[in-house]
């Protein structure tokens, strides 16, 4: 014994190095596999976190910080009192128009006066009012003797050798001089709009009188006089780019004039009970904002309320958070539909015109602000304060159009008669109002999934029940792999056949296809009649469970018959043809790539999943249960429906859930078999756009980090969450079921 132990000891000692190495390797393996395993599982699960992190900035509030002040003082100590403010897109210069008819350019860094240019055409005159167009740096100055001069500021960037921006070359161009009041009264307020071809100038000359000068595309000029009703006192006015004029009065009314094609007063609406103090048109010139003495801010545009309305009506589409003080100025952004309001107490609030979101309230704004400007790149605010102080703020406002309400609620968009759910992410022009409602997409997802399940559940569950309970075992072994072939078919193949073969086929034989849905099960069931009358020689070879050999030919015949009978039924039941009948009697339109096609195709993709899982559930029902039932004299059908089905029903439910999860996320089939129009309509003859197809269509065009990009990530997170929850529920149910079977 002793010597034996010794030998082993000796052996171990001899192999000590090797054993140590092996043990080291083992310890390393524990470390490596544990670390790797946890890392992989964590990173796979981290996908959702990453997607959420990409979507998260949508909901972050905007940031605004004061970045200093510029003293608007000329070198000889004269404090400038600006009538209007402007800046270039790089924020190198700020310019103003002063009562002395001068345009000053101040460097924003350092605050030095860089250039003073006399306002073209107004040498020596006193300026009483000035105006700047929203885009294009068009300036107008009205004088004390009833003249209006127009000019444009041009900035030309200059680059150094390394292609870095060095400076801007400044030019003030003359755009003409008009005598807007022959009587020579001073211009009290001014509105100016110029798009290069057309020009309009509106000048307030008396309490209730506006002179409107307009030059149209064909260079005809006209001068009109506009008056409010009953001498209502005008407080503020603004001109829009497509030539409309909005005028606010002391009684709280807004007058809206359309200038082209002919001048007319279209609407007079009451904005509130207190005097209107500020009016500004948003980017695009369709919506105007009105602020009043009570601090209320509202957005208005004109729209046809009903399709057959002859004219449009001015509607109050948006209401914004109260300023808390009389609104003294409103300024619109030139990149999106944000705007800023200035209160009499100096408060500055940044809003978004479509989402009604209050983006930002500048925390440390000094009282007494007079003029307000959002910089062209939407990254800053300029506020002029008494004493020639120009306060600068940097703002970060990347996704102003997104709120929970704009994603999931109804929003009133320009051109719509009422608030609606709309998805329309891109438009033809820069001033397009983006519409990011996820509701039509979620609706489309649910619609497609429901039609697919409507088709798939009966077939898959019925087929699984038949395969597991009634089919002869010798065929069963071949059926499952066949159905699994169905699962292996790539969805792009199914989608392509659905879109390019099935959709035109269904369109041509729509009645036949509808007939088929009735005829197929009937003809299959009618197989029993053939079965019972089979000649002896044949029926001896066919055992119960081999019904398929009769069924399938019968069904094929039924399908052909339905297709053949289709045109005849169409001609007699739906004269003259189905599509016309549909639009005349049910007011439904027929799209070639519709929900019926998607339902069939996506159903096809989902059937194998539901089939396999529910077949497993049926087969796993302990055979003692069904044997007992059969022994008590129940028929095959009674056993299947009263014993097997109830026992396996949680499994069937989880199969349907997993099928649901697959259909919700299916992309290629929907992409190819629908028209991808985001509509809210349950009609089976219309298409839809689903969350997944929407991502596939739009994300290649979405700029990195932009609002669309992040909204699509949010849609991805939504899909992830939906399928993950559904699958987890299904999985838990299945595990419970497995334990129950073990108990039986």
């Amino acid at each position, binding site marked *: 014994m002793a010597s034996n132990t010794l030998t082993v000891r000796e052996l171990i000692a001899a192999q000590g190095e090797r054993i140590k190495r092996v043990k080291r390797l083992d310890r390393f393996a524990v470390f490596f596999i544990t670390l790797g395993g946890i890392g992989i599982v964590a990173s796979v699960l981290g996908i959702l976190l*990453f997607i959420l992190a990409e979507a998260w900035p949508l909901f972050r509030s905007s940031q605004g910080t004061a970045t200093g002040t510029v003293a608007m003082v000329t070198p000889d100590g004269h404090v400038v009192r600006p009538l209007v403010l402007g800046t270039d897109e790089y924020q190198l210069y700020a310019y103003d128009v002063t009562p002395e008819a001068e345009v000053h350019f101040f460097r924003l860094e350092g605050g030095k006066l860089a250039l003073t240019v006399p306002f073209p055409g107004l040498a020596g005159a006193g300026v009483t009012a000035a105006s700047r167009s929203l885009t294009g740096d068009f300036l107008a100055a009205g004088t004390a003797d009833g003249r209006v001069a127009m000019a444009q500021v041009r900035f030309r960037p200059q680059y150094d050798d390394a292609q870095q921006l060095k400076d801007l070359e400044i030019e003030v161009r003359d755009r003409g001089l008009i005598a807007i009041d022959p009587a020579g009264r001073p211009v009290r307020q001014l509105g100016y709009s110029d798009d290069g071809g057309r020009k309009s100038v509106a000048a307030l000359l008396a309490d209730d009188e506006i002179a409107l000068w307009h030059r149209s595309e064909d260079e005809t000029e006209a001068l009109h006089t506009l008056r409010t009703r009953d001498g209502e006192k005008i407080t503020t006015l603004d001109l829009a780019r497509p030539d409309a004029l909005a005028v606010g009065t002391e009684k709280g009314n807004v007058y809206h004039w359309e200038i082209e094609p002919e001048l007319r007063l279209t609407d007079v609406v009451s904005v509130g009970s207190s005097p209107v103090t500020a009016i500004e048109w948003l980017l695009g010139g369709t919506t105007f904002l009105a602020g009043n003495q009570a601090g209320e801010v509202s957005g208005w545009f004109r729209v046809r309320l009903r399709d057959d309305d002859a004219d449009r009506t001015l509607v109050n589409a948006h209401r914004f958070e109260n300023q808390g003080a009389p609104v003294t100025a409103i300024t619109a952004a030139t990149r999106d539909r944000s705007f800023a309001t200035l209160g009499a107490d100096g408060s500055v609030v940044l809003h978004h015109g479509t989402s009604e979101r209050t983006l930002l309230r500048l925390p440390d704004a000094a009282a007494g602000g007079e003029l307000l400007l959002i910089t062209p790149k939407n990254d800053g605010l300029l506020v002029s304060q008494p004493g020639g102080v120009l306060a600068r703020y940097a703002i970060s406002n990347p996704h102003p159009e997104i709120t929970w309400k704009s994603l999931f609620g109804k929003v009133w968009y320009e051109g719509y008669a009422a608030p609606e759910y709309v998805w329309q992410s891109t438009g033809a022009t820069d001033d397009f109002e983006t519409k990011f409602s996820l509701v039509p997409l979620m609706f489309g997802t649910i619609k497609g999934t429901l039609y697919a399940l409507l088709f798939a559940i*009966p077939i898959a569950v019925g087929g699984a029940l038949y395969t597991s309970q009634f089919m002869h075992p010798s065929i069963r072994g071949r059926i499952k792999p066949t159905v699994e072939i169905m699962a292996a078919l790539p969805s792009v193949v199914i989608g*392509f056949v659905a*879109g390019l073969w099935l959709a035109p086929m269904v369109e041509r034989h729509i009645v036949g296809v509808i007939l088929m849905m009735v005829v197929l099960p009937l003809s299959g069931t009618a*197989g029993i009649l053939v079965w019972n009358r089979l000649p002896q020689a044949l029926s001896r070879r066919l055992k119960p469970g081999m019904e398929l050999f009769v069924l399938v030919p019968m069904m094929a015949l039924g399908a052909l018959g339905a297709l053949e009978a289709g045109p005849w039924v169409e001609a007699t039941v739906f004269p003259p043809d189905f599509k016309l009948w549909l639009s005349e009697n049910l007011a439904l339109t027929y799209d070639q790539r519709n929900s019926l096609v998607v339902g069939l195709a996506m159903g096809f993709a989902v059937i194998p999943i539901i089939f396999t899982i529910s077949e497993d559930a049926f087969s796993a029902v302990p055979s003692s249960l069904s044997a007992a039932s059969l022994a008590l004299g129940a028929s095959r059908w009674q056993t299947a429906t009263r014993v097997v089905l109830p026992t396996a029903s949680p499994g069937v439910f989880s199969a349907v859930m997993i099928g649901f999860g697959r259909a919700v996320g299916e992309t290629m089939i929907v992409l*190819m078999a629908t028209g991808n129009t985001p509509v809210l309509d349950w009609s089976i003859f219309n298409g839809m756009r689903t969350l997944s197809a929407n991502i*596939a269509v739009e994300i290649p065009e979405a700029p990195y980090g932009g609002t669309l990009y992040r909204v699509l*990530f949010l849609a991805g997170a939504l*899909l992830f969450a939906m399928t993950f929850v559904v699958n987890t529920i299904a999985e838990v149910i299945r595990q419970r079921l497995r334990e129950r079977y073990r108990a039986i």
Partner: protein
Amino acid sequence: MKLPLSVRRGDPMVWFTGSALGTCLLLIAGLIVIVLTNGLGFFWPSALVELTLKDGSKWLGEQIRRQPIPNPGSPDHLREHRVQLKLGNRDLLGYDFKWIDEKEIASRREPADAFYVERREYGPLLGAPVLLKDGERVLAEGDAVWAALQPLVAKAEHDRAAIEQIEKHEIGEINYRIEQQRLALKRIEYREKQDGVKREAERSAVAAAVAAQEERFRGKQQELDRLLATAATTYVTFRAADGTEKELSTLDIYRIYPANQLGLGGRLAVYAGRIWEFVSADPRESNTEGGIFPAIFGTVMMVIIMSLMAVPFGVLAALYLREYAKQGPLVRIVRIAVNNLAGVPSIVFGVFGLGFFVYFVGGGIDRMFFPEALPTPTYGTGGILWASLTLALLTVPVVIVASEEALAAVPRSMREASIATGATKFQTILHVVLPAAAPGILTGLILAMARGAGEVAPLMITGVVKLAPELPLDGFFPFFHPDRKFMHLGFHIYDVGFQSPNVEAAMPMVYTTTIFLLLIIVALNLTAIVVRNRLRRKYQTSAF
């Protein structure tokens, strides 16, 4: 009234559920039949018929369809028939297909001198060759043209190969080298900007290299011009059915056959030739003609990279979850979560791949290693590596689940025997457990590959393109270019079928591509199954 016994027993209901299964089977059969009949017939050289209509016009083409004319409301509804001809001659007619009502047809015949010509552009040409010229010299006329033309067509193929060799490979190589030098120059400029040191020597080296390549380029260009001058001298004139004539350089003729004179053997030869071209050639005419070789290559390559990534990581995670982690509620939750990840929509993985791999990782690599090329992205845009990684992520849960099941199925007795002989846990896993579980893990790989090869949605946003000029694998260092975009069979189906300008002409291509995609998926499956069976046999005998 008493119902018959069989009804009361529920037999009709049994048949009713049977119909559900029958529908399943009919659907599968229907889909396969549709794809096969539409796809396989495309390459078959069918006869060319010449229809003379009652108005005197003549139309020559392949009859591809015949159907009743719908005319709802009139008594002729679906009584009359019409035929669809594939006419070719897009450059002469402006369209490829024509429907002709049968009652308009005065006579039909199959002219012996009708030839089907596949050419470089405008789709096929259908007509009779009437004149063959070499420069201004007439070589043959009328019926003699065909005999004289055949060697020229064979020579054209040879010439085209030579031209392609120069254009694509040799000049392509020169372009590649010049491009590399251009990038090198950008790198130098970038460094100069960084540290302010002028690098004249490096600059002149680059300039010299570019000059040398440009010299080579001029030489090749002259060689190419010479080749083109000798190759493109012979012209053949065809007369279409309506009498218009079209002159075609023999160099542009890819295939020509007298459609109505071919026997079965000849037809089979054309059929096989077309299939070979389809598999081995590059696409032509915005993907509606030519082959799909780059798409096949891209698909296979992507699946391979994907498997290389998914299998080790999946197995590692499974080993941890099954062998090393303490089994408890937490591991059970993780297991369910991983299982459910397999059910998360593929487009979600695509979104993740775009955000994480392309913009985050790829953008980071660009900023770190390729700052000189910015703003043109190198890795910060879709490419085969990112697409494969995205798919690997998509398939890792499948591999984890399958591997875990395989590991769990290895009998306890085997592990205990190994431990009892003094093996460490890692030795046991490496030498006993993993080999025994290998067939199961391979099954997981099969499932993963089958899923990966058929996925399109996530690829569409991470690197697949409709036409990639270069394969991701080529003869230039470092041979494998993971940043390149690639073509994919599934995306090819989507693109040609739905984004093509001439969908009707492209349809058969889509069906044939579908057949190939299905073939590749089946082939991948079969290979893996064979390997699995072989491994199973090996370990069955060696284990016990």
